[in-house]
């Protein structure tokens, strides 16, 4: 009954009338499938659906099967050349093809109903899904054979025993601040009025010692310090200049 219930009136370039009539005239070759714009039929059907506002599933499915079959037949007709027996598809053959197609579809449609019912009636059975107990997830002691090398443990232990190397700072450039050296000099002079440069700063690196000499020059300029060196490369005696002296000198 289904497709006959489809009240679809078509107004196509080539054909005006109901859909099932179109099917009949196509099958009897009163209208050439080659000239028929199947797209127009589909558009008409979609418009029909919009007007109706509801989709009757069975009718819609059958419509789709028919249109699909027509499309396939038409594409065969459009194939060029040698496959002549295809080109000469007789109307009766087209009917048979269409019917066979629809019957085949129906078979699976009915099987689907049965499967759905079965699915429904089976849904209450639930199966267990749990991990295996731990003892089944590992090798049995009796079945275990040596697969690991004990040295791997020794090596891992050796890695753990190795203390991490000191962080390498060689890529960082040392900088020595003149400010800080000035402070160090003044601090040293607070403790003692005079001291030997090497005693005080001999432990510093060369750069720090050099900057400290710059700081001494700065303090000399300010009149805070003076020094003595009796010979080249000899010891340097640094001396504080008393503020009173500065006052007197000025």
């Amino acid at each position, binding site marked *: 009954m289904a497709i006959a219930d489809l009240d679809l009136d078509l107004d196509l370039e080539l054909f005006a009338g109901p859909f099932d009539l179109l099917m009949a005239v196509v099958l009897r070759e009163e209208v050439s499938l080659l000239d028929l714009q199947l797209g127009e039929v589909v558009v008409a059907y979609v418009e029909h659906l919009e007007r109706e506002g509801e989709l009757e599933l069975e009718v819609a499915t059958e419509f789709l099967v028919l249109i699909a079959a027509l499309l396939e037949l038409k594409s065969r007709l459009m194939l060029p050349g040698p496959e002549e027996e295809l080109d000469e598809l007789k109307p009766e053959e087209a009917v048979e093809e269409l019917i066979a197609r629809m019957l*085949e579809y129906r*078979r*699976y449609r009915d*099987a689907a109903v049965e499967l759905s019912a079965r*699915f429904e009636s089976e849904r209450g059975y639930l199966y267990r899904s749990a991990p295996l107990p731990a003892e089944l997830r590992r090798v049995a002691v009796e079945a275990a054979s040596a697969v690991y090398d004990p040295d791997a443990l020794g090596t891992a232990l050796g890695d753990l025993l190795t203390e991490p190397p000191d962080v390498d700072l060689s890529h960082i450039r040392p900088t020595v601040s003149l400010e800080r050296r000035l402070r160090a000099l003044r601090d040293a002079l607070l403790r003692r009025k005079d001291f030997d440069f090497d005693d005080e700063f001999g432990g510093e690196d060369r750069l720090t010692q050099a900057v400290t000499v710059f700081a001494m020059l700065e303090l000399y300029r300010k009149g805070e310090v003076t020094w003595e060196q009796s010979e080249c490369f000899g010891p340097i005696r640094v001396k504080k200049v008393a503020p009173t002296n500065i006052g007197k000198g000025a």
Partner: protein
Amino acid sequence: MSDLSRTVEALLFLSPQAVSAKELAEATQASEGQIEEAIELLREDLAEGKRGVVLREVSGGFSLASDPGSEEAARRLLAKPRTPPLTQAQAETLAIVAYLQPVTRPEIARIRGVSSESGVTSLAERGLIEESGRSQFGAAIFKTTELFERLFGLSGLDQLPDPSRFDPSPEDERELRERLLKAGEQRAE
């Protein structure tokens, strides 16, 4: 209950998949005949309505399942929503795959008359069908899964309803033919 049936029950309890009589025999080092007997005892003890667990024969073997009467409580406990029913597109696609497997996607579409992309995808997502290689033209080939047999309570694909049951009757066929032609003729008059 015999020692062997107890062991068989334990194996079915532990195994995530259905276990065949042959596998049970190997694991218990018993004969298949003894396994048959043990299963027979279990079948009685775990018949529907007796306990909370029932013995089922699915996908080529035996499996334990919870009694359907406890489904609601189980879903509450496990916070597992009920699986939605199959849509018509899914059911049709599944029927085609189940009866024709292995079958390609274009073949499914040809029979249904529509592209079956979404039906195929959703069934694969639900684990009911799976790809099993490619045809010589590169189309994906599908077959049903073990889960399909389990969820449909089938002990094997041969337990699917006889497909000849779905053959259209000669009357159906005649009716269809007449309808296609007659309807047109009437209107053509």
